[in-house]
């Protein structure tokens, strides 16, 4: 190790005076109560993880209350109705408000640090997503205090959750609240996909990306494809509850199994959405504790991808007992077995790494939690393979065996790695470490408590105790086992409480903690400050801090790329997705009120809608859109800053439009989300047809309108697309305006609205009603999805026109236009497909 500055590094030292101060000023955290306007990933990430943990505590309290009720037979501490609300809110909160947000929060908090980026590419989007989640989540949870909480279980199966059987607003809180929180999760996912693929440091090719980044990339891609299915399902159920479109009512040709299909198409991947990032965290900690590189890096990446992908082919294993033909079940049973292989690969890789280190595996609190995770998760995996066998599942379906199984998987696979993470990364997010001494107590209390609580449930389940019962008769011989479970839960609770005490005593958010206390090899342990790293390193291996001596020092002194702020604002480096070659410098927005206000009003819109305060809710909706527009107005800064030198003789643009810009990528990701929502719709349409073809046109419903109608609608769509293409050609040279542009955009949007009108009018004229039967509901649902996009484009189009009049749209500065054009063409494509389906399919089968 030599300590002189090396001459082959991109930038010379000493750096000019004032450079560091400027960085500090630009990235400064807002002071006082203005802290709520911050958008920087380290600050909002901390808020995010903090609130997720709060939900864990609150749902945990509900769990303890439930366990208290179940401690003995014939207990009446909690009544039946409240118990039903409690397990629903416990399950829903744990899954939607704790597990997914917690890992997403770690992504926001740690990913940029691991990639040595200054921030994620869309800071305000993360801020918006997080605030929306905080507000929406807290309101949702508080319903348990007012007897307003949903009580249909965390998967909310109809027909129980239809209006007939669940009157009152309780179920609506679930549908609107959770649907809305999923949108926030998707916003975070977009951020993470683009962040992992485009903001890696130079030299960090895909093959050198930290495993956590891989797992977050896969996590986010899974969210993109899984969440839309349940969003569509919640939309349909809410529409059925509010307006009576019979998607799930058998008497009118609907089918409640449709809900199960859509829910589990999301719900099974959800388990892996929770588990994969946790596994990624374990893969980061194990090498540090074993003091040796991860054994089988490639295999782990393969295992992550394979689990992520195959988990989409398992959903029917939650429906084994619904009367689906045995052979169909067998397909999914087979896939469930196959998916166990990659999980096994990961476990072996970790064990091999622990064994491979030449020095002894360090036993810290984090390592204890990892070992605990391996133990518990393996048991959960074994019982998982058991319930994946159809005959066995028939025996234990809806018993406490299943409750034991999924808690082993979820608590073992996610909560234990999370606590390991807290102990391991606390000095990265704060100024000091947590107590190793208390930590061991926390671990042993949680580990023993967990097993004492949940292991006996396998037995209570085998003895026939059903889940979701508020009490049971004492003479069935379930008392002792239940009492043991309850005692275990309290021990587990004591462990968590001790952790909270450790947190209060030892965690101090802020900068300047001990530097690399575990001697880890990855970039998040570089010295950092509010601006993240002083300069962005050139990476040559998977553990740069182990293999590039002096790296920390060189980065800190600013000898690597971008040691300054050449555009005078927040910025970070964008690199190419596969090889991580520097491409441009992205200019990023700073703190502001708009994301917070937009989130508040979006939450208000959804929540007021739930309690049927329609007018105020619409006002809030309009305000939410207004703040989104204010926020969007500041984006698309234009090319005025020219080229900047980042060091090493590399000059990069500070503005890029077209397919390699980060906003183009975000739009593409969004289109995938919209596309998978639409595919879920197509599935639902075809599914309901197989269930009740007798309601389908032309025999069961009015025949679809003459072909002239869809032809007219299609022509309007094509004309609109053509107009957009023309507009692109007509964009004026920089600094000028051209009246034809706003006119063409206006006409294109009008074509879209016209097409929607033609489609609706055509069906309406045939006398088809959305409430008549499932066919009618499906036809109008297609139009509703089209309408949703059309509405977005009306606003987006107007926004683009306003940009033009403000002189912020031309041939150079065109990101706004490009994004609108992408969404427009996507809408046209989807709607043309929709016309073919809705008008063609009944003719085909009729």
């Amino acid at each position: 190790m030599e300590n002189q500055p090396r001459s082959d590094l991109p930038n010379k030292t000493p750096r000019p005076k004032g450079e560091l101060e400027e960085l500090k000023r630009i990235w400064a955290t807002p002071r006082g109560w203005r802290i709520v306007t911050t958008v920087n990933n380290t600050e909002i990430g901390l808020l995010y993880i903090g609130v997720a943990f709060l939900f864990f505590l609150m749902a945990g309290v509900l769990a303890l209350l439930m366990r208290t009720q179940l401690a003995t037979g014939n207990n009446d501490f909690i009544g039946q109705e409240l118990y039903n609300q409690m397990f629903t809110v416990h399950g829903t909160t744990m899954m939607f408000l704790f597990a997914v947000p917690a890992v997403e929060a770690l992504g926001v908090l740690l990913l940029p640090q691991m990639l040595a980026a200054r921030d994620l590419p869309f800071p305000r989007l993360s801020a918006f997503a997080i605030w929306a989640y905080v507000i929406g989540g807290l309101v949702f949870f508080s319903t348990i205090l007012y007897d307003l909480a949903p009580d249909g279980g965390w998967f909310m199966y109809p027909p129980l959750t239809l209006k007939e059987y669940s009157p009152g607003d309780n179920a609506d809180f679930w549908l609107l609240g959770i649907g809305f929180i999923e949108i926030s999760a998707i916003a975070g996912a977009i951020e993470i996909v683009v962040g992992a693929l485009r903001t890696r440091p130079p030299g960090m090719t895909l093959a050198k990306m930290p495993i956590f980044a891989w797992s977050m990339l896969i996590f986010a891609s899974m969210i993109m494809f899984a969440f839309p299915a349940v969003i569509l399902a919640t939309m349909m159920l809410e529409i059925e509850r509010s307006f009576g479109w019979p998607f799930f009512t058998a008497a009118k040709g609907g089918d409640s199994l449709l809900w199960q299909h859509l829910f589990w198409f999301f719900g099974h991947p959800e388990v892996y959405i929770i588990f994969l990032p946790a596994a990624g965290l374990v893969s980061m900690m194990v090498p540090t504790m074993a003091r040796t590189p991860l054994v089988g890096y490639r295999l782990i990446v393969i295992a992550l991808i394979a689990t992520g992908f195959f988990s989409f082919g398992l959903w029917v294993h939650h429906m084994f007992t619904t009367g689906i033909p045995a052979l169909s079940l067998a397909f999914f049973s087979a896939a469930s077995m196959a998916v166990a292989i990659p999980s096994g690969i990961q476990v072996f890789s970790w064990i091999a790494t622990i064994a491979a280190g030449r020095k002894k595996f360090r036993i810290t609190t984090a390592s204890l939690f990892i070992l605990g995770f391996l133990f518990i998760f393996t048991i959960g995996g074994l019982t998982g393979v058991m319930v994946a066998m159809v005959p066995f599942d028939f025996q234990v379906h809806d018993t406490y065996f299943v409750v034991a199984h999924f808690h082993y998987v979820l608590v073992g696979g996610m909560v234990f790695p999370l606590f390991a993470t807290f102990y391991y990364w606390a000095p990265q997010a704060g100024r000091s470490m947590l107590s190793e001494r208390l930590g061991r107590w926390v671990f042993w209390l949680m580990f023993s408590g967990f097993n004492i609580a949940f292991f006996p449930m396998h037995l209570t389940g085998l003895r026939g105790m059903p889940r979701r019962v508020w009490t049971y008769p004492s003479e069935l011989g379930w008392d002792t086992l239940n009492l043991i479970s309850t005692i275990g839960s309290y021990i587990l609770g004591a462990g968590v409480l001790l952790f909270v005490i450790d947190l209060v005593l030892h965690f101090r958010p802020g900068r300047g903690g001990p530097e690399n206390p575990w001697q880890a090899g990855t970039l998040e342990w570089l010295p950092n400050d509010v601006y993240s790293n002083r300069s962005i390193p050139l990476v040559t291996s998977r553990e740069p801090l182990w293999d590039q001596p002096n790296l920390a020092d060189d980065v800190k002194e600013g000898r690597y790329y971008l040691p300054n702020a050449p555009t005078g604002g927040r910025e970070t480096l964008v690199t190419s997705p596969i090889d991580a070659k520097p491409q441009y410098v992205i200019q990023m927005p700073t703190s502001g009120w708009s994301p917070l206000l937009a989130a508040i009003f979006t939450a208000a819109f959804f929540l007021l809608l739930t309690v049927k305060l329609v007018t105020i809710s619409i006002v809030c909706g309009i305000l939410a859109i207004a703040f989104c527009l204010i926020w969007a107005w500041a984006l698309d800064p234009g090319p005025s800053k020219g080229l900047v030198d980042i060091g090493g003789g590399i000059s990069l643009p500070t503005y890029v439009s077209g397919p390699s810009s980060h906003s183009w990528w975000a739009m593409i990701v969004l289109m995938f989300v919209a596309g998978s929502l639409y595919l879920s719709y197509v599935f639902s349409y075809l599914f309901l047809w197989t269930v009740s073809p007798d309601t389908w046109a032309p025999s069961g419903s009015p025949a679809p309108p003459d072909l002239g109608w869809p032809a007219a609608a299609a022509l309007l769509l094509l004309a609109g697309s053509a107009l957009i293409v023309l507009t692109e050609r007509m964009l004026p040279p920089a600094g000028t305006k051209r009246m034809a542009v706003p006119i063409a955009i206006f006409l294109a949007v009008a074509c879209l609205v016209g097409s929607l009108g033609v489609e609706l009018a055509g069906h309406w004229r045939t006398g088809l009603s959305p409430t008549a039967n499932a066919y009618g509901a499906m036809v109008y649902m297609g139009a509703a999805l089209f309408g949703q996009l059309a509405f977005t484009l009306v606003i987006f189009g107007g926004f683009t026109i306003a940009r033009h009049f403000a002189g912020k749209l031309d041939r150079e500065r065109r990101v706004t236009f490009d994004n609108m054009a992408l969404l427009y063409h996507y809408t046209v494509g989807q709607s043309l497909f929709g016309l073919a389906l809705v008008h063609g399919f009944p003719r085909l089968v009729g």
Partner: protein
Amino acid sequence: MKAGNDNGPIAGAILFLLIGPIIWAAHLLLVYGPQSALCAFRIAGRTQVDPWLISMLVAGVTVIAMAAVMLTLWRPRRVARIFRFDAAANDNRSFILSSMRWLGVLALIGIALAGATTLILDPCAQLR
């Protein structure tokens, strides 16, 4: 400035990497979709498809899907060319190639397991 299109490589890389699992997904769709729809109709008495035909359909799709995956394992470079995939850095190339192969093998196992069930089970029998 409007930068050139480098989505080709990344889209190609993703498709190339995931070709095995994609075939697996197509297989699942093509065996599960028709089988469950045809059985639903049979059970409701709307069509008179011979159950044997359903089994053959499943077996046929399985054989084709397995052949397709094996082809990609045997000639990965040709697949790469179809998707215009070409990673510049060398470690990336071998990394993506070997990952693609492993994923293909896993997909093959998945397809084989799912398809094999048709040899044992009556295609439309319900478990109730």
